């Protein structure tokens, strides 16, 4: 049987050509999509299918020296909304009201936030308390996705807030110990990559790749919470009593450089922190390490230590005070314009005689005097483990507008700016046998496996000899116990110390306002405690001895009793 053959007409060829052309186009497109642009489309597909998120590691806790918690992280949720789900108005309304009820946000605001963001997943609430977030997630609120996070809490409220500092939204430290040890505390963040459905929600039992976060170690401070509380309370009371605008107290173990308490007033309040308020932003800076002041007569301790160490004077060396010392024709008077006649070097410290300090400085000479200032660490940071430390300011012959009078006034604490931590560090060297030790706020770190790493004591110099240090302790003991009433004399312990009262410098002159301080140590022979009490611009114009001395004395009695240091038997008997 013969087959009929279609006639090759345009009715056959045209559709055939059309179909062939279409097939070629489709084929070309397939080649483009699957071969030429394979990587791009594969990447797009992956990004549609997979979502990833950073899982923050649990931030290490901050403990006091005895292991009591000062800052720790608790679990929270960051809540995201899959914006596609909320394109359904009814779902959006129900979900936004549920979220608003649990987080305190406004439902209308939430819908606007999601609607206007243009993102697939929109962050609607951060650090939602764990239980509230869990309840929302268990309720299957449409489009809601929760990612675990942590939030910093402070079980001891605002205790040591200026030391601890704050962290930011991304769990990174911004100030204080939180900032200085941020890298350690932060740990290593993990990452989770998960398959998601068209609404952006994770697909149950879908592929999930997780890099586990490694929590940061806990940090053990040198701060003792009880001594910190005592210091903060004493400071607040003194500031109010003497109508000062602020102040600070530093308590240090002079044998190791460990800071046992560091109080500033006013202090940071964690619960009411408002970073839009410039006054509160100012409190983020720790004034003990950042703010400079002229130390006044406390500086005479350094001048005396230098002169004795250089064998230029002894405690018994005498000179004649006429009430004024002329330096290059410029008269320098005593603080109260008093005239003390013949005085020993111990008497210079007891009576706080400016001309006596100038006498010792002139014996040293400017060069040697500045060498001792350098050796004691003035004019450079102490390298304490707190951010924002100032270097201080020491005017030197090479500086513009230098005058030889500057060295003379530096001998009694003017024309030199120091930070409180610099002063405490230098004084520790004066009384601890002459060793300059880096001050520190962290004693140890505890890894997650329980391993404890103690940070070593770092001795950075020996500005004076051990013998000079012993001599200075005796001389400073005579200041606090001169044979007549002294407000800085503790009731139960032997002690030494020196007060300072200095006007606040303004451009080329001094203001009427003053900064008063008292720096002292106890017990006298084997110091366990060095305390600097500083009050800023006290309106009652009480001197350092009268305003800060009693605070020192009370803190010595309280703190040494707490530390278990036996009181001086004679003083106990004399009570």
């Amino acid at each position, binding site marked *: 049987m013969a087959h009929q053959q279609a006639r090759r007409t345009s009715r056959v060829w045209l559709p055939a050509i059309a179909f062939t052309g279409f097939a070629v186009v489709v084929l070309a497109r397939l080649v483009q999509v699957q071969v030429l642009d394979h990587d791009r489309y594969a990447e797009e597909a992956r990004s549609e299918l997979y979502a990833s998120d950073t899982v923050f590691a649990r931030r290490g806790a901050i*403990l006091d*020296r*005895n*292991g*009591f*918690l000062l800052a*720790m*992280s*608790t*679990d929270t949720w960051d809540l995201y909304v899959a914006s596609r789900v909320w394109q359904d108005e009814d779902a959006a309304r129900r979900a936004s009201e549920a979220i608003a009820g649990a987080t305190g946000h406004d439902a209308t605001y939430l819908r606007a936030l999601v609607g206007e963001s243009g993102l697939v997943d929109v962050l609607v609430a951060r650090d939602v308390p*764990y239980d509230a977030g*869990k309840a929302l997630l268990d309720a299957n609120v449409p489009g809601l996705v929760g990612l675990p996070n942590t939030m910093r*809490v402070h*079980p*001891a*409220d605002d*205790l040591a807030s200026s030391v601890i500092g704050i962290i930011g939204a991304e769990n990174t430290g911004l100030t204080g110990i939180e900032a200085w040890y941020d890298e350690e505390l932060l740990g290593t963040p993990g990452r989770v990559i998960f398959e998601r459905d068209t609404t952006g929600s994770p697909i149950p*039992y879908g592929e999930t790749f997780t890099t586990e976060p490694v929590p940061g170690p*806990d940090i*053990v401070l040198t701060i*003792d*919470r*009880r001594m910190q*509380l005592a210091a903060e309370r004493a400071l607040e009371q003194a500031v109010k009593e003497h109508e000062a605008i602020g102040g600070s107290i530093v308590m240090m173990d002079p044998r190791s450089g460990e800071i046992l308490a560091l109080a500033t007033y006013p202090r940071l309040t964690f619960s009411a922190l408002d970073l839009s308020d410039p006054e509160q932003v100012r409190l983020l800076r720790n004034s003990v390490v950042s703010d400079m002041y002229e130390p006044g007569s406390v500086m005479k301790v350094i001048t005396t230590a230098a002169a004795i160490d250089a064998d230029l004077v002894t405690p018994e060396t005498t000179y004649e005070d006429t009430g004024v010392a002329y330096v290059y024709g410029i008269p320098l008077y005593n603080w109260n314009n008093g005239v003390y006649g013949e005085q020993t070097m111990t008497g210079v410290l007891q009576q706080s005689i400016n001309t006596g300090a100038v006498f010792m400085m002139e014996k040293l000479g400017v060069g040697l005097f500045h060498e001792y200032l350098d050796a004691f660490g003035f004019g450079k940071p102490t390298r304490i483990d707190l951010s924002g430390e100032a270097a201080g300011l020491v005017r030197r012959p090479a500086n513009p507008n230098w005058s030889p009078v500057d060295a003379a006034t530096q001998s009694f604490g003017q024309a030199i700016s120091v930070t409180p931590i610099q002063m405490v560090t230098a004084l520790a060297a004066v009384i601890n046998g002459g060793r300059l030790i880096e001050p520190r706020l962290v004693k140890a770190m*505890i890894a997650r496996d*329980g391993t*404890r790493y103690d940070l070593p004591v770092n001795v950075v110099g020996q500005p004076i000899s051990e013998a000079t240090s012993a001599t200075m302790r005796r001389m400073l003991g005579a200041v606090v116990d001169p044979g007549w009433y002294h407000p800085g004399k503790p009731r139960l312990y032997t002690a030494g110390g020196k007060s300072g009262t200095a006007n606040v410098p303004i451009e080329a002159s001094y203001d009427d306002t003053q900064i008063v301080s008292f720096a002292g140590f106890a017990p006298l022979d084997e110091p366990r405690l060095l305390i600097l009490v500083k009050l800023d611009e006290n309106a009652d114009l009480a001197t350092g001895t009268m305003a800060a001395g009693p605070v020192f004395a009370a803190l010595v009695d309280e703190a040494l*009793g*707490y*530390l*278990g*240091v*036996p*009181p001086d038997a004679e003083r*106990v008997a004399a*009570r």
Partner: protein
Amino acid sequence: MTAIERPAPRFRGLSLPRLGVSGWIVAGALIVSASAMAPVVQNSLMTTQGRNLEALAGEQNALRVEMRQLEAEIARLISVERIARRASEIGLVPGANAIFVTIGETGPEPPKIPAEHLPESPESGSGLAAP
């Protein structure tokens, strides 16, 4: 011709049941069905166990969170500022004249909450130690 009577063998080994063609087809179908069902059953079991595992992991996490919350609560309750405030509220005041007694024995171990991971003998006391 005499036929030799031979006893039938008592045991002739295992013999397959006699199945007709349709029987073999049914058996094959059963085997194929069972093979097909096996992954489904296995998958179902895995899913169930996965769900259980996930529930247990969730429970573990919830307990961890609760533990941390309790840890924070303990820390808050034993914070020195709160204790001082509470002492003040119930009328306690700091002692004016402490009596110091020197004794030859070491004091008791300091409390270990929450510092259980610290060395056994902290350098400084955690209470008013006797001198």
